[in-house]
């Protein structure tokens, strides 16, 4: 056991820190490629710079534009990006979900067509999984793809798709056989978002931001060469995506929480609440939870590097992050007292905490509700009987 950087890791960290310092434009700190955050062009530009400097897809193989580095380098990258409050790479879904899935299940042609562009920010991805009638029970999805010779014709509706309004590509799960049990008739497609028949409509969230979208598919033609894995075996492919969504993304989420805890401490001091013993107690608790989460990620990472399989501890990351983030943002509003009601330009820090607090309610719903994640831990990690 050793929590210090190896000499190589330390050198990488130093170089990265210097690079961020030199290349992060003035005024980009703390801005992310989401509505109200960094504009799409700026976000793409930042992603391009990251890629050119070799910081996008650190753990991806060299042949697909990655660096072939061990996972610890990705952890260091996220820590340093968080420390500098640098914007995230625009390809959150591409890097975290679409890319890893294509690497595991995609054809050579698909890998060559998409992986490099995903890293460079040229291709932004969105996810077409949930439907109005299929949330936690994803396998009940009804968007259908009909065989039309060399292509499929897709009809249906997807929902809760972040980035769909700016995305170039979509990872889409569709029903290709309705005559078999629900898990067996699903196919996984890569869809060009500029195809005719795709209509993206923003969904306004409780924050007032249209971060999510609905995607309507009307007779959209998708070439058969865009099937990932085998036809009707998309469920297994989708599981790879979800595993990555909830697994490796844990590091990015923890890095965000680290920024949030630092901001909370700054707020507490700024508002003179650092003498209040109850606030002090709650701040300590938030820091402890962050630290425990970060270390748990490291532990899962060590297991991954030693065995090639992520440790079961990793299943905790998203679940605990979301709940800890909700408590943290509520604490911030508590510290603001009566001023907590003022948001936007009249709010403290321009309404930053009001926005964070409202946004945090989505954390326990998106990417697997906390209830589903507790089921997964109980059934797949702990071996308890299935609840359904």
């Amino acid at each position, binding site marked *: 056991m*050793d929590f210090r950087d190896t000499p190589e890791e330390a050198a990488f960290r130093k170089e990265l820190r210097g690079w961020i310092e030199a290349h992060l434009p003035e005024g980009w700190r703390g801005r992310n490629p989401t509505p109200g955050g960094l504009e799409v062009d700026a976000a793409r530009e930042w992603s391009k710079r990251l890629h050119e400097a070799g910081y996008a897809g650190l753990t991806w193989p060299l042949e697909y534009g990655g660096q072939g580095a061990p996972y610890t380098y990705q952890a260091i990258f996220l820590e340093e990006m968080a420390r500098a409050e640098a914007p995230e790479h625009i390809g959150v879904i591409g890097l975290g979900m679409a890319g890893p899935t294509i690497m595991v299940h995609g054809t050579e042609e698909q890998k060559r067509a998409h992986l490099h562009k995903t890293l460079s920010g040229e291709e932004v991805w969105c996810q077409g999984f949930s439907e109005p009638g299929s949330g936690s029970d994803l396998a009940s999805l009804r968007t259908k793809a009909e065989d039309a010779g060399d292509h499929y014709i897709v009809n249906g509706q997807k929902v809760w798709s972040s980035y769909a309004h700016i995305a170039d590509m979509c990872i889409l799960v569709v029903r290709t056989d309705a005559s078999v049990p629900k898990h067996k008739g699903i196919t996984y497609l890569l869809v060009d978002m500029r195809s005719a028949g795709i209509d993206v409509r923003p969904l306004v969230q409780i924050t007032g931001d249209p971060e999510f979208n609905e995607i309507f598919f009307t007779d959209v033609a998708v070439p058969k060469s865009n099937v990932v894995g085998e036809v009707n075996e998309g469920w297994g492919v989708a599981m790879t995506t979800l595993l990555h969504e909830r697994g490796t993304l844990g590091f990015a989420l923890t890095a965000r929480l680290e920024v949030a805890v630092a901001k909370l401490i700054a707020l507490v001091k700024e508002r003179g609440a650092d003498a209040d013993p109850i606030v002090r107690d709650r701040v300590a608790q938030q820091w402890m939870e962050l630290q425990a989460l970060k270390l748990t990620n490291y*532990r899962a990472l*060590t297991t991954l590097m030693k065995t090639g399989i992520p440790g079961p501890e990793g299943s905790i990351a998203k679940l605990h992050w979301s709940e800890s983030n909700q408590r943290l943002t509520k604490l911030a509003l508590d510290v603001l007292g009566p001023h907590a009601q003022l948001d936007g330009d009249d709010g403290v820090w321009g309404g930053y905490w009001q926005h964070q607090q409202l946004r945090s309610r989505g954390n326990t719903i998106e990417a697997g509700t906390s209830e589903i994640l507790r089921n997964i831990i109980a059934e797949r990690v702990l071996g308890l*009987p299935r609840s359904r």
Partner: protein
Amino acid sequence: MDFAFTDEQEMLRHQARSFLATEFPAERIAELSFSEAGWDESSWRTMAELGWTGLSIPEEHGGAGMSFLDESVLFEELGYALYPGPYLSTVALTLPAFADAPDLLASVAAGTATATVAIAEPGGPSSLEDAGGVRTEALRAGRGWSVTGTKELVCDLATAGHVVMVARSEEGVGMWSVAPPVSSRRVTSTMDRSRRLGRLVLEEEPARLLVGPEHLEPVLRQMRSRGLAALALEAVGIAQKAFELARDYSKERKQFDKAIGAYQAISHQVSNIYIDMELARSLAYWAAWCVAEEDPRAPTAAAAAKALASEAAVAACERSIQIHGGVGFTWEHVLHRYYKRAQWISSFEGGVSAQRAVVASSLLDA
């Protein structure tokens, strides 16, 4: 970055798990909790033979010259087995005070001595954090010293061969070792009968100076960090046991024709035990590493780990008792023993809010 125990440490864990399972099954633990002595004295010699008591003691003093990280494997396993004996008091708490006393180190390594530290005083300090407030007096007596005063909440007092007194002399606060007569010790009624606390009244008891006031700070800091980290690791072991009992029972127990673990009201509680335990485990291992490496973050890490792990252990036992229903609430079931130990851990050296205050200070007062 490497977050794994070495193969040797894993072997030690395996050895401890099987030794403790054989020597201290649940029935034996229950039996010992009713005995006069409260523990099996012969186990100490065996543990010394296994090399456990001298694990971190330098080789020139008869130990194995290993680190707190190696000991941490044992703290966790001893917690898991609910071992009743003075390993925590002797090894985690007292060893820093023996650093300049080769004879005492050698006797601990050989298994011929057990020891504890007496900190708290009635109406006075209750943890090492406020050691500066002790009123127990150390006076020069001829060429040696004598100690006068009353101590309470002394861990394993009844069986300790050496008691390290945190006391005050004309020059300031330091540590003296005494071998108090039986008549000066009273075992106080302790909720966790497998780790009893005692009260000690000394009147001009001959004492040996171990740590002079000029050297006190680093020893206190080390003692506290080791103690808190060890308690956190024990708590992880306790949580692990409560978790396994809950998980297994929820698979076996059937109601309404189904294993109760199929009901989400039960399975989500088992998941919660697991989540809190794994988070606490990560923090406890990190704290152990900080202590072993004398990292400047060790005091904060140990306080944080003790708070999070003791809370996780207490909650694990409470949830496990609830999942077991009436059976979990009975004296016969093993769970209440773990529950009481979890609460012992939570209270010793200050409860969760006291530990969080230490963490808050490192975050907000820097």
